[in-house]
């Protein structure tokens, strides 16, 4: 046991002491805001040039120019041939041709452009024309605009997640936590993605580290003092601790920054939704947004999320880390490793793709299954968690994950003990299997 510790200590200190670790830890959180910032910059700079869509309208539906998003529809008397030329010379983006038709049976509307227009654009133009036709119909049928307006009702749903602490107070208001499904979606995605990233990045660190020991030939020197399994465990734990340190630094940074900003804006954390609504009437907008965010954050059980995150993060890391260690021990160089890392990476990548399904339908059977299945549960249970997961499902999933981690470490250990001392042979799955079942090595 103390030898695992010695290996662990070396592995951990070597990595944490590197400058690249510090820089990476501090800069990575900046990448996301930077990315969003760049996207916003490009989106807003797009506003400058409006796209002109000329419209030949034989029904006189569109009389004035209509602008929407970056586009503007301009009625014109020009011939289509001329418009075609203008489209080709990029003077205008497209041409809309509305033929003479019966408004109760509109058909034959055509749109010309050089490139295929986006679905959004088509949808918007269709809406505009439908709207115009509706207005004509209102007049035609002699309907009253005012009573028509009264027909339209806007409803928005506030979603509440029911927890066990639910109680009905004197005013018979349900005192359930106000949940925001947007918040749950965002946080679920964020957590899932974070685990995905860590499993991948730090998993490949393990692979690299094992491979380095093998190719620098230091491994047999070390292995004469420690058992292969101890070496592997020390290494996996060491790299895991580095990842954990990084997350811890981020959590501390996040808490510090949010505490500073919340004191700056005077948010005391205990104010209820209603208070915020009252406050927002006489406060500036930024304050409102910040309060909104804090309120959403306080609506989720942060402690539970953090603890569950750590469990799934460690579980996912050890599960995949063990496989990466086994691969690293078996092959001689990184090129050979790729044929084995692919099947290991597939469930991780698949998890990311399934995340959309899980976030859309967190309680569907497929979501429940994927959040139980150990190869996908670290990412997909984290994605589901913020929507509310029954305790039994959570515990069962963790139990299955722990079992799989133990199996994976045992499995990897059996490959590793042979692999690190084998060089120059062509590694196949059949050979790995022989190593695995070899009784006495």
């Amino acid at each position, binding site marked *: 046991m103390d*030898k695992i510790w*010695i290996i662990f200590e*070396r592995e951990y200190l*070597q990595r944490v002491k590197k400058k690249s670790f510090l820089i990476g830890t501090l800069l990575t959180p900046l990448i996301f805001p930077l990315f969003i910032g760049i996207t916003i910059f490009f989106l807003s700079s797009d506003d400058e040039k409006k796209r002109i869509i000329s419209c030949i309208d034989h029904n006189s539906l569109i009389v004035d120019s209509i602008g929407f998003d970056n586009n503007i529809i301009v009625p014109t008397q020009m011939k289509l041939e001329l418009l075609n030329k203008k489209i080709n010379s990029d003077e205008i983006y497209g041409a809309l041709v509305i033929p003479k038709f019966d408004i109760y049976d509109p058909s034959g509307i055509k749109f010309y452009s050089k490139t295929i227009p986006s679905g959004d654009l088509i949808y918007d133009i269709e809406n505009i024309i439908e709207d115009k036709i509706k207005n004509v119909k209102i007049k035609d049928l002699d309907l009253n605009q005012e009573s028509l307006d009264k027909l339209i009702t806007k409803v928005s749903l506030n979603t509440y997640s029911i927890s066990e602490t639910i109680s009905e107070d004197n005013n018979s208001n349900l005192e359930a936590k106000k949940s925001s499904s947007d918040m749950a979606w965002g946080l679920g995605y964020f957590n899932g993605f974070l685990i995905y990233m860590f499993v991948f990045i730090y998993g490949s660190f393990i692979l690299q580290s094992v491979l380095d*020991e093998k190719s*620098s*030939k*230091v*491994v*047999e*020197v*070390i*292995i*004469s*003092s*420690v*058992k*292969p399994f101890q070496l592997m465990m020390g290494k996996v734990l060491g790299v895991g601790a580095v990842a954990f340190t990084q997350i811890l630094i981020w959590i501390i940074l996040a808490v510090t920054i949010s505490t500073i900003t919340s004191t700056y804006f005077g948010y005391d954390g205990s104010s209820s939704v209603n208070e915020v609504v009252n406050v927002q009437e006489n406060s500036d907008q930024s304050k409102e947004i910040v309060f909104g965010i804090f309120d959403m954050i306080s609506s989720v059980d942060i402690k539970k999320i953090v603890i569950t995150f750590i469990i799934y993060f460690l579980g996912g890391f050890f599960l995949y880390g063990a496989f990466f260690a086994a691969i690293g021990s078996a092959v001689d160089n990184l090129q050979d490793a790729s044929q084995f890392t692919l099947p290991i990476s597939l469930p991780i990548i698949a998890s990311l793709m399934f995340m959309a399904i899980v976030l859309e339908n967190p309680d569907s059977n497929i979501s429940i299954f994927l959040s139980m299945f150990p190869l996908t549960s670290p990412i997909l249970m984290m994605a589901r968690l913020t929507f509310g997961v029954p305790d039994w499902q959570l515990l069962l999933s963790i139990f299955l994950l722990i079992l799989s981690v133990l199996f994976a470490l045992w499995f990897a250990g059996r490959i590793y003990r042979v692999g690190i*001392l084998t*060089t120059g042979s062509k590694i196949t799955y059949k*050979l790995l299997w*022989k190593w695995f079942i*070899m009784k*006495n*090595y």
Partner: protein
Amino acid sequence: MDLLNVKNICKSYVNHRALDNISIDIPRANIFGLLGPNGAGKTTLIRIINQIINQDSGQILLHGININYDDIRKIGYMPEERGLYKKMKIGDFLLFMGKLKGLSRSESINSARDWFNNLEVSNWWNKNIEDLSKGMSQKVQFISTVLHNPDLIILDEPFSGFDPVNANLIKKNLLRLKDEGKTIIFSTHRMESVDELCDNLVMINKSKKILSGKINDIKSAYKSDIYKIKHLNKIDDKISNFSVIDSKIVFDNIYESEIKLTKKISSNDLLRLLLSNSIEILEFKQKTPNMNDIFIMKVEEGKE
């Protein structure tokens, strides 16, 4: 009492048998040569002694007792495939290796300092390993092998990568360690160093032991029946009991000849025979094979 007894060790891998019923007794305070061509099973045997891998059957006794995992602290092993962590400082690496062998920090530092002196290197503690030349790396590897003052030192091809000066330095230190009572197992397929260093040896070929014993005994057992003679007057090849393989004039009437006995007679009988044929002997030498010859001879024998 022997330091190490290898008893009836067998080991098979997936596709072949690496060791076939190998038994070796290695005395204390001895430099013991473990010889054999590549792929003979030397490294497998060494790995079994180091408990890196397990034997299929047979026993290893250290100080007469079945070896257990704690005993690896009494062994220092320098593998043939050896390397260092490139991104570490020498001092940190030696502390790490010392710790794995159960040394305290100060024990490691003291021992490392002694060995820095022995190997004529100084102020290496804070040097980066990636800056070292091959010879310097080899010295660091050697130091990490003997840092914990082991009773048994196992060196697999220790002189590969050393220049002659440093190889001599290591040899000197090995002899000193032997005088201090340490036992050194020395695995190689380079026979020159065996002739110089080893007291005893065992030779393995194709997973079987084919030769063992004291190096002097082996050499005399493989004394050949070829003699080198420097003499006056030509040898008449009509003389019975030997044939002249080669004969050339060195100067005037002085010849150098190689003769091979055709009948088993002693050296004295051969001398008498030559003298009685009025040949004046200037030099008379029985050709003794060096280990290289014996090695090649034994390996060739195995091929038949």
